[in-house]
Protein backbone atom coordinates (compact mmCIF):
# COMPACT_ATOMS: atom_id res chain seq x y z
CA UNK A 1 0.00 0.00 0.00
CA UNK A 2 1.23 3.46 -0.83
CA UNK A 3 0.62 6.57 1.13
CA UNK A 4 -1.85 8.70 -0.81
CA UNK A 5 -2.17 11.43 1.78
CA UNK A 6 0.06 12.64 4.54
CA UNK A 7 1.35 15.81 6.08
CA UNK A 8 3.46 17.78 3.57
CA UNK A 9 7.17 18.07 4.35
CA UNK A 10 7.16 21.83 4.42
CA UNK A 11 4.92 21.66 7.48
CA UNK A 12 6.53 20.90 10.82
CA UNK A 13 5.33 17.83 12.66
CA UNK A 14 3.84 19.70 15.57
CA UNK A 15 0.38 20.29 16.89
CA UNK A 16 -0.78 23.82 16.07
CA UNK A 17 -2.31 26.19 18.58
CA UNK A 18 -5.35 26.69 16.37
CA UNK A 19 -8.77 26.00 17.77
CA UNK A 20 -10.41 22.72 16.78
CA UNK A 21 -11.85 22.97 13.31
CA UNK A 22 -10.19 26.27 12.47
CA UNK A 23 -9.49 26.22 8.75
CA UNK A 24 -6.22 28.11 9.16
CA UNK A 25 -4.82 24.58 9.38
CA UNK A 26 -6.13 23.60 5.97
CA UNK A 27 -4.71 26.73 4.37
CA UNK A 28 -1.32 26.14 5.97
CA UNK A 29 -1.32 22.68 4.49
CA UNK A 30 -2.20 23.88 1.00
CA UNK A 31 0.69 26.36 1.01
CA UNK A 32 3.04 23.66 2.26
CA UNK A 33 1.85 21.22 -0.40
CA UNK A 34 2.59 23.75 -3.13
CA UNK A 35 6.03 24.40 -1.68
CA UNK A 36 6.67 20.67 -1.60
CA UNK A 37 5.45 20.14 -5.13
CA UNK A 38 7.59 22.93 -6.49
CA UNK A 39 10.52 21.75 -4.39
CA UNK A 40 11.25 25.27 -3.18
CA UNK A 41 11.28 24.93 0.59
CA UNK A 42 14.99 25.75 0.68
CA UNK A 43 14.46 28.90 -1.35
CA UNK A 44 11.35 30.19 0.34
CA UNK A 45 10.97 32.93 2.92
CA UNK A 46 7.60 33.17 4.63
CA UNK A 47 6.37 36.32 6.32
CA UNK A 48 3.68 36.11 8.97
CA UNK A 49 2.36 39.15 10.77
CA UNK A 50 0.23 39.27 13.90
CA UNK A 51 -3.06 37.40 13.91
CA UNK A 52 -3.99 33.89 14.89
CA UNK A 53 -1.34 32.68 12.49
CA UNK A 54 1.38 34.69 14.22
CA UNK A 55 3.14 31.50 15.23
CA UNK A 56 3.19 30.10 11.72
CA UNK A 57 6.97 30.40 11.98
CA UNK A 58 6.79 27.30 14.08
CA UNK A 59 4.70 25.45 11.52
CA UNK A 60 6.35 26.15 8.18
CA UNK A 61 9.73 24.56 7.68
CA UNK A 62 11.08 27.24 5.34
CA UNK A 63 12.80 30.35 6.71
CA UNK A 64 10.28 32.61 8.40
CA UNK A 65 10.01 36.25 9.42
CA UNK A 66 7.47 37.50 11.92
CA UNK A 67 6.18 40.92 10.83
CA UNK A 68 4.44 43.72 12.71
CA UNK A 69 0.65 43.78 12.44
CA UNK A 70 -0.30 44.79 8.91
CA UNK A 71 3.21 45.22 7.58
CA UNK A 72 3.90 41.82 6.05
CA UNK A 73 3.82 43.14 2.47
CA UNK A 74 6.46 45.74 3.35
CA UNK A 75 8.61 43.17 5.12
CA UNK A 76 8.18 40.82 2.17
CA UNK A 77 9.13 43.64 -0.20
CA UNK A 78 12.33 44.21 1.75
CA UNK A 79 13.18 40.51 1.73
CA UNK A 80 12.32 40.05 -1.94
CA UNK A 81 14.26 43.11 -3.07
CA UNK A 82 17.25 41.93 -1.09
CA UNK A 83 16.95 38.36 -2.40
CA UNK A 84 15.20 38.54 -5.78
CA UNK A 85 15.79 34.85 -6.48
CA UNK A 86 14.01 33.57 -3.41
CA UNK A 87 10.30 32.89 -3.12
CA UNK A 88 8.66 35.23 -0.68
CA UNK A 89 5.12 34.83 0.55
CA UNK A 90 3.02 36.45 3.23
CA UNK A 91 0.21 34.85 5.19
CA UNK A 92 -2.18 37.48 6.51
CA UNK A 93 -5.54 37.78 8.17
CA UNK A 94 -8.30 40.16 7.14
CA UNK A 95 -7.73 42.54 10.00
CA UNK A 96 -4.07 42.58 9.19
CA UNK A 97 -4.28 42.93 5.44
CA UNK A 98 -7.43 45.00 5.00
CA UNK A 99 -7.42 47.26 8.07
CA UNK A 100 -4.12 48.36 9.57
CA UNK A 101 -2.17 47.09 6.55
CA UNK A 102 -4.31 48.63 3.81
CA UNK A 103 -1.57 50.94 2.57
CA UNK A 104 1.05 48.19 2.47
CA UNK A 105 -1.37 45.89 0.65
CA UNK A 106 -2.40 48.43 -1.97
CA UNK A 107 1.14 49.61 -2.58
CA UNK A 108 2.83 46.24 -2.83
CA UNK A 109 0.06 45.43 -5.32
CA UNK A 110 0.41 48.55 -7.41
CA UNK A 111 4.19 48.20 -7.39
CA UNK A 112 3.70 44.75 -8.87
CA UNK A 113 5.95 43.44 -6.13
CA UNK A 114 6.89 39.92 -7.18
CA UNK A 115 5.51 38.17 -4.10
CA UNK A 116 2.63 35.90 -3.12
CA UNK A 117 0.02 36.97 -0.61
CA UNK A 118 -2.16 34.39 1.09
CA UNK A 119 -5.04 36.35 2.52
CA UNK A 120 -7.14 34.51 5.09
CA UNK A 121 -10.53 36.17 5.34
CA UNK A 122 -12.47 34.90 8.32
CA UNK A 123 -14.56 38.08 8.70
CA UNK A 124 -13.19 38.83 12.16
CA UNK A 125 -10.14 39.50 14.30
CA UNK A 126 -9.61 35.97 15.53
CA UNK A 127 -6.55 36.46 17.65
CA UNK A 128 -7.78 39.32 19.78
CA UNK A 129 -11.07 37.67 20.57
CA UNK A 130 -13.41 38.39 17.71
CA UNK A 131 -13.76 42.09 16.99
CA UNK A 132 -15.17 43.61 13.82
CA UNK A 133 -12.86 43.30 10.83
CA UNK A 134 -13.09 45.32 7.60
CA UNK A 135 -14.62 42.18 6.09
CA UNK A 136 -17.19 41.56 8.82
CA UNK A 137 -20.56 41.10 7.13
CA UNK A 138 -23.36 43.62 7.61
CA UNK A 139 -25.35 42.55 10.64
CA UNK A 140 -22.63 40.24 11.94
CA UNK A 141 -22.29 40.25 15.71
CA UNK A 142 -18.76 40.65 17.00
CA UNK A 143 -17.19 41.89 20.21
CA UNK A 144 -17.18 45.46 18.88
CA UNK A 145 -20.47 45.20 16.99
CA UNK A 146 -22.55 43.69 19.78
CA UNK A 147 -25.76 44.70 18.04
CA UNK A 148 -24.62 43.52 14.62
CA UNK A 149 -22.49 45.52 12.19
CA UNK A 150 -24.47 48.61 11.31
CA UNK A 151 -23.29 49.90 7.96
CA UNK A 152 -24.67 53.35 8.75
CA UNK A 153 -22.12 53.94 11.46
CA UNK A 154 -19.55 51.20 10.98
CA UNK A 155 -19.35 51.22 7.23
CA UNK A 156 -19.35 48.57 4.57
CA UNK A 157 -17.09 45.55 4.17
CA UNK A 158 -14.20 45.82 1.71
CA UNK A 159 -14.03 43.32 -1.10
CA UNK A 160 -10.28 43.14 -1.39
CA UNK A 161 -9.89 41.22 -4.65
CA UNK A 162 -12.32 43.50 -6.43
CA UNK A 163 -10.47 46.56 -5.18
CA UNK A 164 -6.99 45.32 -6.00
CA UNK A 165 -8.03 44.13 -9.43
CA UNK A 166 -8.20 47.81 -10.45
CA UNK A 167 -4.41 48.10 -10.01
CA UNK A 168 -1.98 47.62 -12.88
CA UNK A 169 0.70 45.81 -10.88
CA UNK A 170 -1.52 42.87 -9.97
CA UNK A 171 -0.87 39.58 -11.80
CA UNK A 172 -3.42 37.44 -10.01
CA UNK A 173 -6.30 38.26 -7.70
CA UNK A 174 -8.45 35.26 -6.92
CA UNK A 175 -10.91 34.40 -4.19
CA UNK A 176 -11.32 30.80 -3.04
CA UNK A 177 -12.83 29.03 -0.02
CA UNK A 178 -12.07 25.97 2.10
CA UNK A 179 -15.56 24.88 3.00
CA UNK A 180 -15.53 21.70 0.91
CA UNK A 181 -13.12 19.39 -0.83
CA UNK A 182 -13.83 20.75 -4.33
CA UNK A 183 -13.21 24.29 -3.12
CA UNK A 184 -10.09 23.18 -1.31
CA UNK A 185 -8.80 21.71 -4.57
CA UNK A 186 -9.53 25.00 -6.30
CA UNK A 187 -7.78 26.90 -3.54
CA UNK A 188 -4.67 24.85 -3.97
CA UNK A 189 -4.64 25.46 -7.70
CA UNK A 190 -4.85 29.18 -7.10
CA UNK A 191 -1.98 29.10 -4.62
CA UNK A 192 0.07 27.09 -7.08
CA UNK A 193 -0.63 29.64 -9.79
CA UNK A 194 0.44 32.43 -7.48
CA UNK A 195 3.79 30.77 -6.76
CA UNK A 196 4.26 30.03 -10.46
CA UNK A 197 3.68 33.72 -11.14
CA UNK A 198 6.46 34.55 -8.76
CA UNK A 199 8.73 32.05 -10.44
CA UNK A 200 8.00 33.67 -13.78
CA UNK A 201 8.43 37.18 -12.39
CA UNK A 202 4.90 38.19 -13.25
CA UNK A 203 4.37 40.40 -10.25
CA UNK A 204 1.93 40.55 -7.40
CA UNK A 205 -0.39 37.61 -6.74
CA UNK A 206 -3.02 37.49 -4.04
CA UNK A 207 -5.15 34.51 -3.14
CA UNK A 208 -8.00 35.41 -0.81
CA UNK A 209 -9.16 32.36 1.11
CA UNK A 210 -12.53 32.49 2.83
CA UNK A 211 -11.92 30.78 6.15
CA UNK A 212 -13.72 30.07 9.41
CA UNK A 213 -13.35 31.13 13.00
CA UNK A 214 -15.58 28.75 14.95
CA UNK A 215 -14.41 30.20 18.27
CA UNK A 216 -15.36 33.76 17.61
CA UNK A 217 -18.32 33.02 15.38
CA UNK A 218 -19.78 31.08 18.29
CA UNK A 219 -20.47 28.11 16.04
CA UNK A 220 -19.26 24.53 15.91
CA UNK A 221 -16.65 23.79 13.27
CA UNK A 222 -19.24 22.11 11.08
CA UNK A 223 -21.75 24.97 11.49
CA UNK A 224 -18.93 27.28 10.57
CA UNK A 225 -18.49 25.57 7.23
CA UNK A 226 -22.19 26.09 6.62
CA UNK A 227 -21.95 29.78 7.44
CA UNK A 228 -18.97 30.08 5.13
CA UNK A 229 -21.02 28.56 2.34
CA UNK A 230 -24.31 30.28 2.98
CA UNK A 231 -23.35 33.74 4.23
CA UNK A 232 -19.78 34.47 3.27
CA UNK A 233 -19.48 33.13 -0.26
CA UNK A 234 -22.58 34.95 -1.49
CA UNK A 235 -21.17 38.24 -0.15
CA UNK A 236 -17.66 37.50 -1.36
CA UNK A 237 -18.16 35.67 -4.64
CA UNK A 238 -15.45 33.15 -5.45
CA UNK A 239 -13.59 33.61 -8.67
CA UNK A 240 -10.69 35.12 -10.56
CA UNK A 241 -10.77 38.91 -10.41
CA UNK A 242 -7.59 39.40 -12.32
CA UNK A 243 -5.21 37.00 -14.02
CA UNK A 244 -2.73 38.39 -16.48
CA UNK A 245 -1.80 34.94 -17.71
CA UNK A 246 -5.42 34.35 -18.68
CA UNK A 247 -5.41 37.62 -20.55
CA UNK A 248 -2.29 36.51 -22.35
CA UNK A 249 -4.07 33.39 -23.46
CA UNK A 250 -7.27 35.12 -24.44
CA UNK A 251 -5.67 37.89 -26.45
Amino acid sequence: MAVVFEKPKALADVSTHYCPGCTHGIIHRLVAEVIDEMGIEGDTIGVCPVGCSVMAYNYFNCDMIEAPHGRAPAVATGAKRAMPDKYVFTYQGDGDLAAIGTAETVHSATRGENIVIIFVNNTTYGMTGGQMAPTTLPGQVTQTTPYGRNTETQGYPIRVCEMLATLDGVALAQRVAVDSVPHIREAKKAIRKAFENQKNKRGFSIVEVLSTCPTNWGLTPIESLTRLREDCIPYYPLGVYKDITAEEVVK
Partner: protein
Amino acid sequence: MERNLMKGNEALAEAAIRAGCKCFFGYPITPQTELSAYMAKRMEKAGGVFLQAESEIAAINMVLGAAATGVRAMTSSSSPGISLKSEGISYIAGSDLPCVIINVQRGGPGLGGIQPSQADYWQATKALGHGDFHLLVYAPASVQEMINMLTKAFDLADEYRMPAMILADGLLGQMMEPVTFPEIKANVVEKPWATNGHQFKRKHNIVNSLYLQPDGLQKTVQDRFVRYEDIKKKHSEAELYKTEDADIVVVAYGATARVAKSAVNKAREAGIKAGLIRPMTLWPFPEKQIVEGTKAASDVLVVEMSMGQMVDDVKLSLECSKPVHFFGRTGGVIPKPTEIFDEIIKIGGAK
Protein backbone atom coordinates in the same frame (compact mmCIF):
# COMPACT_ATOMS: atom_id res chain seq x y z
CA MET B 1 42.89 62.04 -1.19
CA GLU B 2 40.81 64.63 -2.97
CA ARG B 3 38.67 66.91 -0.86
CA ASN B 4 35.30 67.69 -2.32
CA LEU B 5 32.35 69.72 -1.16
CA MET B 6 29.42 67.59 -0.26
CA LYS B 7 26.09 68.06 1.47
CA GLY B 8 25.66 66.14 4.69
CA ASN B 9 22.66 64.26 3.36
CA GLU B 10 24.49 63.25 0.22
CA ALA B 11 27.62 62.29 2.12
CA LEU B 12 25.56 59.93 4.26
CA ALA B 13 24.17 58.29 1.14
CA GLU B 14 27.56 57.92 -0.52
CA ALA B 15 29.09 56.60 2.70
CA ALA B 16 26.33 54.03 3.02
CA ILE B 17 26.90 52.77 -0.49
CA ARG B 18 30.61 52.49 0.21
CA ALA B 19 29.93 50.69 3.49
CA GLY B 20 28.18 47.99 1.52
CA CYS B 21 24.60 49.05 2.18
CA LYS B 22 22.58 46.97 -0.26
CA CYS B 23 19.07 48.22 0.38
CA PHE B 24 17.79 51.71 1.05
CA PHE B 25 14.13 52.39 1.68
CA GLY B 26 12.96 55.94 2.27
CA TYR B 27 10.10 58.35 2.23
CA PRO B 28 10.61 62.03 1.43
CA ILE B 29 10.73 64.56 4.23
CA THR B 30 12.49 67.87 4.67
CA PRO B 31 15.33 68.37 5.61
CA GLN B 32 16.71 65.02 4.42
CA THR B 33 15.28 64.65 0.91
CA GLU B 34 18.69 64.88 -0.77
CA LEU B 35 19.63 61.56 0.78
CA SER B 36 16.93 59.68 -1.12
CA ALA B 37 17.57 61.70 -4.24
CA TYR B 38 21.24 60.71 -4.14
CA MET B 39 20.35 57.08 -3.57
CA ALA B 40 17.90 57.21 -6.47
CA LYS B 41 20.77 58.30 -8.70
CA ARG B 42 23.50 56.01 -7.47
CA MET B 43 22.21 52.96 -5.66
CA GLU B 44 21.11 50.90 -8.62
CA LYS B 45 24.35 51.56 -10.45
CA ALA B 46 26.20 50.40 -7.37
CA GLY B 47 24.30 47.12 -7.49
CA GLY B 48 21.98 47.91 -4.65
CA VAL B 49 18.30 48.62 -4.21
CA PHE B 50 16.73 52.04 -3.82
CA LEU B 51 13.01 52.05 -3.24
CA GLN B 52 10.78 54.92 -2.27
CA ALA B 53 8.25 53.39 0.08
CA GLU B 54 4.64 54.46 0.41
CA SER B 55 5.28 55.69 3.95
CA GLU B 56 7.82 55.75 6.75
CA ILE B 57 6.13 52.71 8.25
CA ALA B 58 6.50 50.75 5.06
CA ALA B 59 10.11 51.92 4.77
CA ILE B 60 11.16 50.71 8.21
CA ASN B 61 9.43 47.39 7.66
CA MET B 62 11.14 46.96 4.32
CA VAL B 63 14.36 47.50 6.23
CA LEU B 64 13.25 44.79 8.65
CA GLY B 65 12.64 42.39 5.76
CA ALA B 66 15.89 43.16 3.99
CA ALA B 67 17.95 43.07 7.19
CA ALA B 68 16.41 39.72 8.06
CA THR B 69 17.92 38.25 4.91
CA GLY B 70 21.34 39.37 6.07
CA VAL B 71 22.08 42.34 3.81
CA ARG B 72 22.99 45.79 5.08
CA ALA B 73 19.90 47.95 5.02
CA MET B 74 19.19 51.56 5.84
CA THR B 75 16.42 54.12 6.06
CA SER B 76 16.34 57.80 6.68
CA SER B 77 13.84 60.37 7.83
CA SER B 78 13.28 63.40 10.01
CA SER B 79 11.47 63.79 13.32
CA PRO B 80 7.77 63.12 12.53
CA GLY B 81 8.79 60.31 10.22
CA ILE B 82 10.97 58.78 12.92
CA SER B 83 8.01 58.74 15.31
CA LEU B 84 6.11 56.73 12.73
CA LYS B 85 8.97 54.27 12.52
CA SER B 86 9.01 53.66 16.24
CA GLU B 87 6.94 50.49 16.25
CA GLY B 88 9.11 49.04 13.49
CA ILE B 89 12.33 50.02 15.24
CA SER B 90 11.13 48.32 18.39
CA TYR B 91 10.47 45.18 16.31
CA ILE B 92 13.91 45.37 14.72
CA ALA B 93 15.52 45.65 18.13
CA GLY B 94 13.32 42.88 19.47
CA SER B 95 14.28 40.66 16.52
CA ASP B 96 18.00 41.35 17.00
CA LEU B 97 18.40 42.72 13.50
CA PRO B 98 21.14 45.14 12.46
CA CYS B 99 20.35 48.21 10.38
CA VAL B 100 21.06 51.93 10.21
CA ILE B 101 18.47 54.65 10.68
CA ILE B 102 19.13 58.32 9.97
CA ASN B 103 17.27 61.06 11.77
CA VAL B 104 17.93 64.52 10.36
CA GLN B 105 16.09 66.27 13.15
CA ARG B 106 13.79 69.24 12.72
CA GLY B 107 11.75 71.30 15.14
CA GLY B 108 8.82 69.67 16.93
CA PRO B 109 6.45 68.71 18.39
CA GLY B 110 3.89 67.85 15.74
CA LEU B 111 4.54 69.23 12.31
CA GLY B 112 6.67 71.83 14.05
CA GLY B 113 9.12 73.37 11.64
CA ILE B 114 11.82 72.26 9.29
CA GLN B 115 14.77 74.02 10.85
CA PRO B 116 17.45 72.17 12.85
CA SER B 117 16.65 70.76 16.25
CA GLN B 118 17.93 68.30 18.84
CA ALA B 119 14.63 67.66 20.55
CA ASP B 120 14.54 63.95 19.67
CA TYR B 121 17.38 63.11 22.07
CA TRP B 122 15.20 61.32 24.58
CA GLN B 123 13.40 59.48 21.86
CA ALA B 124 16.65 58.28 20.30
CA THR B 125 18.47 57.39 23.49
CA LYS B 126 15.69 56.09 25.71
CA ALA B 127 12.40 55.32 24.02
CA LEU B 128 12.32 54.86 20.28
CA GLY B 129 9.29 52.70 20.70
CA HIS B 130 7.81 50.53 23.42
CA GLY B 131 9.71 48.08 25.58
CA ASP B 132 13.20 47.77 27.01
CA PHE B 133 15.78 48.28 24.28
CA HIS B 134 18.40 50.64 22.94
CA LEU B 135 19.89 51.74 19.66
CA LEU B 136 23.44 52.78 19.08
CA VAL B 137 23.18 56.54 18.63
CA TYR B 138 25.89 58.52 16.86
CA ALA B 139 25.93 62.30 16.89
CA PRO B 140 28.13 63.71 14.12
CA ALA B 141 29.18 67.34 14.14
CA SER B 142 30.54 67.68 10.61
CA VAL B 143 29.91 66.25 7.20
CA GLN B 144 33.15 64.31 7.37
CA GLU B 145 32.12 62.81 10.68
CA MET B 146 28.80 61.75 9.19
CA ILE B 147 30.76 59.62 6.77
CA ASN B 148 33.00 58.12 9.41
CA MET B 149 30.24 57.42 11.86
CA LEU B 150 27.98 55.86 9.28
CA THR B 151 30.59 53.23 8.52
CA LYS B 152 31.07 52.52 12.17
CA ALA B 153 27.33 52.35 12.72
CA PHE B 154 26.97 49.60 10.14
CA ASP B 155 29.89 47.66 11.58
CA LEU B 156 28.70 47.77 15.18
CA ALA B 157 25.10 47.13 14.20
CA ASP B 158 26.21 43.92 12.52
CA GLU B 159 28.48 42.95 15.35
CA TYR B 160 25.89 43.44 18.07
CA ARG B 161 22.82 42.64 15.97
CA MET B 162 21.00 45.84 16.77
CA PRO B 163 19.80 48.99 15.04
CA ALA B 164 22.08 52.02 14.97
CA MET B 165 21.03 55.60 14.48
CA ILE B 166 22.81 58.64 13.11
CA LEU B 167 21.20 61.51 14.99
CA ALA B 168 21.87 64.52 12.82
CA ASP B 169 19.92 67.70 12.27
CA GLY B 170 18.85 69.95 9.43
CA LEU B 171 21.99 72.04 9.69
CA LEU B 172 24.31 69.08 9.21
CA GLY B 173 22.10 67.51 6.58
CA GLN B 174 21.90 70.64 4.45
CA MET B 175 25.39 72.11 4.76
CA MET B 176 28.27 71.42 2.43
CA GLU B 177 31.77 70.95 3.75
CA PRO B 178 34.96 69.48 2.35
CA VAL B 179 35.09 65.73 2.74
CA THR B 180 37.26 62.82 1.74
CA PHE B 181 36.20 59.22 1.54
CA PRO B 182 38.57 56.83 3.24
CA GLU B 183 39.08 53.46 1.61
CA ILE B 184 36.51 51.41 3.43
CA LYS B 185 36.98 47.78 4.27
CA ALA B 186 33.43 46.60 4.79
CA ASN B 187 33.53 44.58 7.95
CA VAL B 188 32.00 41.32 6.77
CA VAL B 189 30.14 39.68 9.62
CA GLU B 190 28.80 36.15 9.29
CA LYS B 191 25.04 36.02 9.69
CA PRO B 192 24.09 32.41 10.26
CA TRP B 193 20.74 33.56 11.61
CA ALA B 194 19.64 35.19 8.35
CA THR B 195 16.38 34.11 6.73
CA ASN B 196 17.71 33.80 3.21
CA GLY B 197 16.50 30.32 2.29
CA HIS B 198 17.84 27.29 4.14
CA GLN B 199 18.66 25.34 0.95
CA PHE B 200 18.08 22.18 3.01
CA LYS B 201 21.52 22.79 4.50
CA ARG B 202 20.44 23.93 7.92
CA LYS B 203 17.37 24.12 10.15
CA HIS B 204 14.99 26.86 9.16
CA ASN B 205 15.80 30.25 10.58
CA ILE B 206 13.20 32.41 12.29
CA VAL B 207 13.34 36.16 12.74
CA ASN B 208 10.95 37.01 15.48
CA SER B 209 10.26 39.18 18.50
CA LEU B 210 7.33 37.25 19.97
CA TYR B 211 7.73 35.26 23.16
CA LEU B 212 4.47 34.16 24.67
CA GLN B 213 6.14 32.88 27.80
CA PRO B 214 7.19 35.80 30.00
CA ASP B 215 10.25 33.91 31.17
CA GLY B 216 11.41 33.46 27.61
CA LEU B 217 10.89 37.11 26.79
CA GLN B 218 12.62 38.18 29.98
CA LYS B 219 15.59 36.05 29.15
CA THR B 220 16.05 37.47 25.66
CA VAL B 221 15.75 40.99 27.01
CA GLN B 222 18.23 40.33 29.78
CA ASP B 223 20.66 38.71 27.35
CA ARG B 224 20.36 41.76 25.14
CA PHE B 225 21.16 43.99 28.08
CA VAL B 226 24.30 41.98 28.74
CA ARG B 227 25.39 42.89 25.22
CA TYR B 228 24.46 46.50 25.96
CA GLU B 229 26.80 46.47 28.94
CA ASP B 230 29.60 45.30 26.70
CA ILE B 231 28.91 48.14 24.30
CA LYS B 232 28.84 50.65 27.12
CA LYS B 233 32.27 49.50 28.15
CA LYS B 234 33.84 49.55 24.72
CA HIS B 235 32.12 51.97 22.43
CA SER B 236 31.25 55.25 24.07
CA GLU B 237 33.00 58.19 22.40
CA ALA B 238 33.49 61.85 23.12
CA GLU B 239 35.78 64.67 22.09
CA LEU B 240 37.43 66.58 24.92
CA TYR B 241 38.51 70.09 23.95
CA LYS B 242 40.59 72.24 26.28
CA THR B 243 39.13 70.49 29.30
CA GLU B 244 42.33 69.70 31.23
CA ASP B 245 42.35 72.99 33.10
CA ALA B 246 38.84 74.14 32.42
CA ASP B 247 36.84 75.80 35.19
CA ILE B 248 33.70 75.75 33.15
CA VAL B 249 33.00 72.88 30.82
CA VAL B 250 30.37 73.10 28.15
CA VAL B 251 28.76 69.83 27.09
CA ALA B 252 27.17 69.89 23.66
CA TYR B 253 26.82 67.54 20.73
CA GLY B 254 26.25 67.74 17.01
CA ALA B 255 25.78 71.10 15.35
CA THR B 256 25.42 72.76 18.74
CA ALA B 257 28.93 71.63 19.66
CA ARG B 258 30.33 73.62 16.72
CA VAL B 259 28.73 76.78 18.04
CA ALA B 260 29.80 75.92 21.56
CA LYS B 261 33.39 75.49 20.44
CA SER B 262 33.38 79.01 19.00
CA ALA B 263 32.05 80.25 22.33
CA VAL B 264 34.69 78.33 24.27
CA ASN B 265 37.41 79.82 22.09
CA LYS B 266 35.96 83.25 22.67
CA ALA B 267 35.92 82.63 26.41
CA ARG B 268 39.54 81.51 26.36
CA GLU B 269 40.42 84.70 24.50
CA ALA B 270 38.63 86.59 27.24
CA GLY B 271 40.80 84.79 29.79
CA ILE B 272 38.17 82.38 31.03
CA LYS B 273 39.22 78.77 31.36
CA ALA B 274 36.47 77.15 29.39
CA GLY B 275 36.41 73.72 27.80
CA LEU B 276 34.11 71.55 25.77
CA ILE B 277 33.02 67.94 25.96
CA ARG B 278 31.36 66.75 22.81
CA PRO B 279 29.57 63.40 23.17
CA MET B 280 29.95 61.56 19.87
CA THR B 281 27.88 58.61 20.97
CA LEU B 282 24.67 59.49 22.79
CA TRP B 283 23.91 55.88 23.54
CA PRO B 284 26.10 54.59 25.03
CA PHE B 285 26.47 57.93 26.78
CA PRO B 286 30.13 58.79 27.42
CA GLU B 287 29.84 58.84 31.19
CA LYS B 288 33.50 58.26 31.87
CA GLN B 289 34.54 60.99 29.48
CA ILE B 290 32.17 63.40 31.21
CA VAL B 291 33.78 62.64 34.55
CA GLU B 292 37.25 62.80 33.06
CA GLY B 293 36.61 66.06 31.20
CA THR B 294 35.15 67.87 34.18
CA LYS B 295 37.87 66.94 36.67
CA ALA B 296 39.10 70.49 36.99
CA ALA B 297 35.76 72.14 36.54
CA SER B 298 33.59 73.82 39.09
CA ASP B 299 30.62 74.18 36.78
CA VAL B 300 29.14 72.41 33.81
CA LEU B 301 26.98 74.01 31.15
CA VAL B 302 24.88 71.83 28.89
CA VAL B 303 23.80 73.43 25.64
CA GLU B 304 21.19 71.84 23.43
CA MET B 305 18.79 72.72 20.67
CA SER B 306 15.95 71.52 22.88
CA MET B 307 14.35 72.37 26.19
CA GLY B 308 17.00 70.24 27.92
CA GLN B 309 17.08 66.52 27.34
CA MET B 310 20.74 65.51 27.60
CA VAL B 311 21.16 67.50 30.79
CA ASP B 312 19.91 64.62 32.98
CA ASP B 313 22.44 62.23 31.51
CA VAL B 314 25.21 64.67 32.32
CA LYS B 315 23.98 65.05 35.89
CA LEU B 316 23.77 61.29 36.32
CA SER B 317 27.24 60.80 34.86
CA LEU B 318 28.56 63.20 37.47
CA GLU B 319 26.37 61.70 40.17
CA CYS B 320 25.07 65.20 40.75
CA SER B 321 28.48 66.16 42.14
CA LYS B 322 28.72 69.49 40.31
CA PRO B 323 26.27 72.18 39.35
CA VAL B 324 24.99 71.46 35.87
CA HIS B 325 23.54 74.52 34.15
CA PHE B 326 21.50 74.50 31.02
CA PHE B 327 21.11 76.76 28.04
CA GLY B 328 18.74 75.80 25.28
CA ARG B 329 17.17 76.98 22.09
CA THR B 330 14.36 75.10 20.47
CA GLY B 331 11.94 75.04 17.55
CA GLY B 332 14.65 75.45 14.95
CA VAL B 333 16.47 78.34 16.57
CA ILE B 334 20.24 77.82 16.49
CA PRO B 335 22.06 79.19 19.52
CA LYS B 336 24.55 81.94 18.78
CA PRO B 337 28.17 81.75 19.94
CA THR B 338 27.67 85.02 21.79
CA GLU B 339 24.70 83.65 23.68
CA ILE B 340 26.71 80.68 24.90
CA PHE B 341 29.62 82.95 25.68
CA ASP B 342 27.29 85.11 27.76
CA GLU B 343 26.11 82.04 29.67
CA ILE B 344 29.70 81.09 30.39
CA ILE B 345 30.36 84.59 31.69
CA LYS B 346 27.21 84.49 33.79
CA ILE B 347 28.25 81.24 35.43
CA GLY B 348 31.79 82.43 35.88
CA GLY B 349 30.59 85.74 37.26
CA ALA B 350 28.23 84.09 39.68
CA LYS B 351 31.22 82.92 41.71
